[in-house]
């Protein structure tokens, strides 16, 4: 497969970037998108050029490291997959593929296609946890009965890998789907009730402080989420927020 890649190149956070074009040949349909970039980088290194930097780790769709806006969509054209799970068979011989970093004011570019997604870590740290006494008297979580529907919904929310595709896809660069998943996974469980009020207030406050946009319910985040996080979580976040503020 012969392709033309248009890739965002940027030396550092403070330098000005630009799109650069690279022709590439010998790409097989069975290769993953990241393997295709590996081939590109091997070629660049052999020519003495600087390879394209991009985030990756597990390469099996569970770590949330890989990102990339491919042809205008986070993680490319396929649904329910991360970039590392995207295969080159999704493209045709002769295609031009545009590859950009996830764009958001809260996700500044570090280099080339790598962005700083630590804003998500700070949202998580502001309330995305349950305080547990670990002094030796910790209760077995399974000792508390939880109905199946709530347990399943909490688990579905907890499937969020924090990749940032929701932010990248949203026309407003809103982080509501991520924040709602992290709030929901506890809001549905009895263990999460004790800190429910401060959790939602702190996480929403941190989300706003990071400079993410406002949710306008376009639903783009849900469509592009590689883990299928549902918009129901955003409604739950809104309910939790209203409830927390009414309680005062």
């Amino acid at each position, binding site marked *: 497969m012969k392709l033309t890649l*248009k890739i*965002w190149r940027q030396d550092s956070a403070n330098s000005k970037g630009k*799109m650069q074009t690279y022709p590439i040949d010998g790409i097989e349909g069975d290769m993953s998108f990241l393997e295709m970039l590996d081939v590109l980088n091997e070629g660049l290194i052999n020519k003495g050029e600087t390879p394209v930097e991009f985030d990756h780790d597990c390469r099996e769709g569970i770590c949330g490291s890989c990102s990339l*806006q491919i*042809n*205008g*969509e986070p993680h490319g*054209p396929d649904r329910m997959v991360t970039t590392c799970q995207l295969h080159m068979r999704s493209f045709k011989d002769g295609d031009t593929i*545009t590859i*950009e970093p996830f*764009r*958001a*004011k*809260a996700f*500044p*570019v570090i280099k080339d296609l790598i962005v700083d997604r630590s804003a998500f870590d700070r949202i998580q740290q502001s309330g995305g946890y349950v305080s547990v006494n670990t002094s030796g008297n910790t209760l077995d979580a399974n000792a508390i009965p939880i109905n199946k529907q709530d347990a399943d919904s909490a688990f579905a929310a907890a499937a969020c890998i924090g990749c940032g595709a929701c932010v990248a*896809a949203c*026309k*407003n*660069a*809103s982080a509501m789907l991520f924040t709602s998943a992290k709030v929901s996974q506890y809001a549905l469980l009895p263990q999460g009730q004790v800190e429910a009020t401060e959790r939602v*207030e702190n996480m*929403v*406050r941190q*989300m*706003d402080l990071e*400079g*993410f*946009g*406002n*949710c*306008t*319910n*376009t*639903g*783009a985040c849900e*469509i*592009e989420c590689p883990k299928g996080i549902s*918009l*129901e979580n*955003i*409604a*739950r*976040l*809104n*309910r939790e*927020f*209203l409830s*927390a*503020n*009414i309680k*005062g």
Partner: protein
Amino acid sequence: MSGIPSSSIARKIIMALSGLFLVVFLGQHFVINITSVIAPDTFNTWSHFMGYNPLVQYALQPVLIGGVIVHFVMGFVLEIQNRKARGVRYFKYNGGANASWISRNMIISGATVLAFLFVHMYDFWFHEMVYKYVEFSPEDPTRYYTETVEKFHSPIKTGLYVISFVLLALHLLHGFASSFQTMGVNNKYSAAIKTFTKVYAIVIPLGFAFIAIYHHLNPITQ
């Protein structure tokens, strides 16, 4: 209500509540207006009531104007914040792959409706204010039907109204159901809300368009 004014969710809730209020007003407005087609005398009676009832004039009307201002100001505030939140724009952004044009362009449909409101306010509200509070003209419960029909004499004005109603329909198609999601409603009733939204967003604005076209095609001949 500690976080309400400064929080993004609070701003969205204000947007949703003011929007829902305007949706209700729109329905009431339509019910009165459609009588201008089917029962002009009833239209005159109701219009006179709305124009001179103290509760409507001094309580409901200021609330309505407040609702309109809040909705539009908040809409523009959110749009500015959202544009800033992107930072550097994408070289290629395939927004159509994951969201409808309507949901991504509420600012376009909203701004069109706002521009229409200025024309509409000038046509009806401003003239009403002049009639009552500048000219101090006497109460005349029979004038409303004639005045309304005359407003649609011009094909350009009628066309502008119809275009605005189409944009209003697009705005409601996303905004109505979206406001329930913002209020935290996403459950077994959501499918019914979306269906009702589609019916309401098409029937009411196109009903208004029908009224405008009807009066344009059926002028009063003395």
